[in-house]
């Protein structure tokens, strides 16, 4: 502390003097005692290692008597076997070469057989002619420090083990995820076909957008022959999402396929589906349903004309782009969600596709896509009609490409899966139109 100003009190001088006297008394006492009772071990050896002098502290640490040590033991006799080896190979040669060593870790052997970890420093004392006379050695008890190092080592090993376990767990989780993704991909292919078959005299195109890649889709479509030149196709949307929706999709797809082979009338295929879904779900108090549009397309006149018969249960109307540049919806009024009530009414409609005409089926992921900030700012049927008119006439491939571009523009507004399926009669009398698929 600094004293600033003020007159020193006379008594203070006397106090200081007595304190100094006490210190001096303590220090005078210490030369011998400091050596013997120092907080570290001291020893001096001859150049051959024979111990000439050793302090009480070190003797106490080792449990040895002075008489048994001085002139009788060498420094190496105090070391463990490992310590002896280290002394022979490193300690002694280095000391000879450098004249001193600092902080060497060694283990001393106690009389009771225990070991004492120590840090050793040594210096060679030389005579006036420079000849080495003896070695002075200080020994610090390093038990605590060694224990600390051991603890650090143990912790590091634990951390490394934990990291190895975490790495293994992550590898396992990644393997599981990859296996699950494979399984999902297989299941997804059972819900929608990888590619459409080639249909003679027709061009086809499809696009499937999944709103979230790790979810099994709730939209479905298919195209398959039902004998002769007649082909069946359908597209729909099941309620809900995830595995439950996928199981409903699966039931729907295979029911429709079987029903179409049994009776290729669009309305009766949907009626069969309605009965199956109602029996399986809603009748049991767990309403599940789908919207679906089902069609049969078959030759119907010259120039490759095709008759298309459609049936719909609660599904948005199909769209036709005519070769003359018009676009029109094909409403199927009265059709009800499939699976809600027994004997649900099915809406039907029929049209003829001439050369250059294209019919488009879509799910409400498109018309219900959000185009504004609110949840009710939807793309809507009017906008879709305008879009279709702008793109008529168009081949299935052109129309699907245009609609895919539209979906990409809507981007984040696509909350739902979206499926698009287009069938068209080629404008020019050409042999076979190539089938084109987009799956995203």
């Amino acid at each position, binding site marked *: 502390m600094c004293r600033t100003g003020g007159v020193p009190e006379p008594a203070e001088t006397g106090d200081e003097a007595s304190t100094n006297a006490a210190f001096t008394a303590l220090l005078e006492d210490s030369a011998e005692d400091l050596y013997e009772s120092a907080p570290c071990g001291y020893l001096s050896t001859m150049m051959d290692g024979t111990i000439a002098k050793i302090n009480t502290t070190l003797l106490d640490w080792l449990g040895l008597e002075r008489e048994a040590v001085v002139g009788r033991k060498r420094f190496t006799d105090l070391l463990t076997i490992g310590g002896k080896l280290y002394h022979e190979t490193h300690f002694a040669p280095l000391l000879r070469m450098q004249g001193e060593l600092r902080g060497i870790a060694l283990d001393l052997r106690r009389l009771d057989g225990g070991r004492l970890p120590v840090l050793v420093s040594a210096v060679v004392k030389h005579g006036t002619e420079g000849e080495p006379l003896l070695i002075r050695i200080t020994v610090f008890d390093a038990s605590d420090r060694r224990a600390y190092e051991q603890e650090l080592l143990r912790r590091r090993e634990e951390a490394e083990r934990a990291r190895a376990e975490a790495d293994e767990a992550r590898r396992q989780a990644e393997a599981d995820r990859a296996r699950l993704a494979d399984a999902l991909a297989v299941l997804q292919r059972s819900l929608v076909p990888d590619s459409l078959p080639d249909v003679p005299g027709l061009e086809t195109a499809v696009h499937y957008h999944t709103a979230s890649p790790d979810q099994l889709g709730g939209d479905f479509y298919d195209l398959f022959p039902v004998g002769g030149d007649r082909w069946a196709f359908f597209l729909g949307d099941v*309620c*809900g*999402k995830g595995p439950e929706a996928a199981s409903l999709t699966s039931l729907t797809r295979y029911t429709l396929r079987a029903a179409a082979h049994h009776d290729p009338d669009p309305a009766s295929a949907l009626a069969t589906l309605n009965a199956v879904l109602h029996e399986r779900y*809603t009748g049991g*108090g*767990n*309403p*599940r*349903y789908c*919207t679906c549009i089902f069609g049969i397309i078959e030759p119907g006149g010259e120039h490759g004309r095709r008759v298309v018969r459609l049936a719909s*249960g*609660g*599904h*948005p109307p199909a769209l036709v782009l005519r070769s003359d540049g018009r676009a029109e919806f094909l409403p199927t009024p*009265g*059709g*009800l*969600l499939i699976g*809600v*009530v027994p004997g*649900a*009414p099915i*809406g039907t409609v029929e049209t003829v596709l001439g050369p250059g005409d294209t019919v488009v089926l879509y799910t409400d992921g498109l018309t219900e896509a959000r185009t504004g900030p609110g*949840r*009710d700012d939807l793309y809507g049927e009017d906008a879709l009609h305008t879009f279709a008119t702008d793109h008529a006439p168009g081949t299935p491939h052109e129309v699907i490409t245009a609609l895919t571009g539209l979906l990409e523009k809507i981007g984040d507004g696509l909350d739902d899966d979206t499926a698009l399926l287009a069938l068209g009669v080629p404008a020019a009398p050409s042999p076979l139109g190539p089938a084109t698929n987009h799956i995203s």
Partner: protein
Amino acid sequence: MNPLTVRQHDTTTGPVLHVAGDLDFDQAPVLRGRLDQLSLSPGQCLVLDLSGLEFCDSSGITALLAARQHALAAEADVVLAAVPANLLRVLTLVGLDQVFTLRPDSSAAS
């Protein structure tokens, strides 16, 4: 997202559930749960007052159909009252306007 609330008041003809907020995938189970607890007697009429409904998706429609199924199982009737325009558009699109009895408001239910 608007939280879904279901408030019930009983009338001489049967319970009226005022359903308000968003009836979507996350919250439809709330209404489904309430319906499971609701006891109906034969001849009663369950009214779902939807005047406070902000949003309804396909899961919400499923919940409405579950309400219908619940009422039918109890030999009771079900009425949707004060259906918002957007929901009415969707119900009409999928043909459910033929399945549900629709009323302009819940007081007219009696």
